[in-house]
């Protein structure tokens, strides 16, 4: 990526980013543009460079922050009405680490409200459009971040990945995306969705940029109990077996788009030509990962989103009347009306499913059953990684779908996550990378759209995955 130095000023980097942000306004990528502050910070960096002072590894690099990272610059909304008006007094640890190295946040990006979705259509601010085709979705939930990087508005962007929210939009827009090992990067100052799978990660234009960002952002944070001591900075690229696995159940799935299948086969050949052995694996429990995920994740969502009540911050309803429930006090109505007006339909679905699977009488049949399925999924991955260094897999069964195509059919939307969620349930790292485009003569995709694949590895193999992705792109 381009970093400010004696010949390239930070101001020119930031200005060029702001121009592109303006140019692609109709794509609805951003929720906030940080023009004034960004230029001021750029001037300070240029001054330091002129004075011969030390500047960081990301000096003057414009980046975009997914709008579920708390920031003192502009409102933080997570693209949800219920958080509108929130001027956070704190910054996320991740953004602080980036800014310490000189990176400059130029804009914040659109997402499905509270990261609930796979298309960025569930945003209070409307959908973000695909980088290559305005009639198609950006993917989600980090759709804005993926499109911002794909259209070169910024050098990189942050994201969160609870069930595929970095990898799927990365693949829909032809950029790199990393979902790190659970706990690698601090989640302090990031709006919680499902705490047992939420991770912070990045979008970039190259594998080497991902490597740099990971080495800056990783590490233990006393403000996040689930953050791991830094392993990324101390790990080297090393493959014991030189073996790459493929998951038979995914590759042979009738739901897999033929264009993705041929992009996959191409990479398999490329790995072979580079001396890697390809090993076919069977992971039958993965078929149940999506069902388990849509129990565990809503359960955690229901708990995490119970805090939004309109009392302490952000949106508060003005409607304190409800003729149909005369027994409710004005305070009760403030809670329930704030939540009903402030959440999107998809947020409500997940909160209600979560409360259902956790309620007495249903807990054993749903939540406990899903937690047991999770164990089986983890064990199958562990066994697989005794045989191979990494697994090559599609990210999603299809390339970017049409806007509106799945938005009223939650199950078909959830099925887009079928190949990404197993990774989250097991806490594993995965890197999504670009793998070409749909072909010119494909009638289903008149405008060719990007294809993406992912490499999945055992815990703490993030560095290997980034290096492997770099080798075959």
């Amino acid at each position: 990526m381009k970093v400010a130095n004696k010949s390239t000023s930070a101001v020119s980097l930031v200005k060029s980013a702001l121009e592109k942000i303006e140019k692609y306004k109709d794509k609805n990528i951003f929720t906030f543009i940080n023009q004034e502050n960004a230029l001021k910070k750029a001037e300070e960096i240029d001054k330091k460079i002129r004075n011969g002072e030390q500047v960081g590894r990301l000096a003057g690099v414009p980046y975009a922050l997914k709008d579920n990272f708390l920031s003192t610059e502009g409102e933080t909304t997570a693209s949800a009405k219920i958080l509108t008006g929130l001027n956070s007094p704190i910054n996320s640890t991740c953004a602080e680490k980036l800014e310490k190295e000189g990176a400059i946040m130029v804009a914040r990006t659109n997402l499905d409200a509270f990261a609930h979705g796979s298309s960025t259509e569930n945003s209070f601010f409307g959908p973000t459009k695909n980088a290559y085709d305005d009639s198609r979705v950006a993917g989600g939930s980090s759709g804005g971040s993926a499109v911002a990087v794909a259209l070169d508005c910024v050098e990189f962007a942050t994201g969160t990945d609870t069930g595929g929210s970095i990898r799927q939009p990365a693949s829909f827009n032809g950029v790199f995306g990393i979902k790190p090992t659970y706990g690698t990067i601090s989640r302090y100052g990031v709006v919680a969705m499902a705490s047992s799978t939420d991770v912070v990660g990045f979008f970039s234009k190259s594998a080497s940029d991902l490597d740099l960002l990971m080495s800056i952002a990783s590490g233990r944070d006393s403000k996040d109990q689930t953050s791991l001591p830094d392993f990324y900075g101390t790990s080297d690229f090393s493959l014991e077996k030189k073996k790459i696995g493929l998951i038979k159940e995914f590759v042979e799935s009738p739901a897999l788009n033929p264009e993705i299948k041929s992009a996959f086969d191409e990479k398999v050949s490329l790995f072979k030509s580079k001396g890697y052995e390809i090993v076919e694996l069977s992971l039958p429990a993965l078929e149940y990962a999506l069902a388990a995920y849509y129990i565990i994740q809503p359960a955690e969502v229901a708990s995490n989103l119970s805090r939004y009540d309109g009392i302490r911050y952000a949106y508060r309803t003005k409607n304190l009347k409800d003729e149909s429930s005369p027994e409710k006090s004005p305070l009760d109505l403030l809670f329930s009306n704030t939540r009903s007006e402030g959440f999107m339909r998809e947020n409500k679905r997940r909160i209600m499913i979560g409360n259902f699977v956790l309620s007495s009488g249903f807990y054993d049949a749903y939540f406990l059953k899903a937690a047991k399925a999770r164990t089986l999924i983890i064990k199958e991955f562990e066994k697989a990684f005794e045989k191979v260094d990494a697994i090559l897999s599609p990210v999603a069964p299809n390339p970017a779908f049409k806007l509106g195509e799945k938005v009223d059919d939650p199950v078909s939307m959830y099925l887009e996550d079928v190949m990404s969620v197993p990774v989250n349930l097991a806490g594993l790292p995965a890197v999504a990378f670009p793998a070409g485009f749909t072909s010119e003569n494909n009638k289903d995709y008149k405008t060719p759209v990007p294809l993406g694949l992912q490499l999945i590895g055992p815990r703490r193999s993030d560095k290997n995955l980034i290096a492997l992705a770099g080798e075959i792109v």
Partner: protein
Amino acid sequence: MNISEKEIDHLAELSNLSLEKDEKKALEKDLQNIFKYISKLNELDTENVEPTYQVFEMENVWRKDEILPQDADREALLALSKEQEDNQIKVPKVL
């Protein structure tokens, strides 16, 4: 599995949501479809399998018992609420 209107009302109450009639109908259908999908899990044999609730390698971390500086002070946090009085957040009548 069938989800009745009564169950939707109960879930809305547990979720602290007040739903319009149309919304209730739509959610009834959505939740029905979602539960139909997740009941697929019943096919999976989980006999004698221990549940997993988190994938973090828990390990005790010690620190000194001292007050560390906070990122936001009392005033900044209070200022986030819509109404304040005497250094407290003001809410509508409780009873």
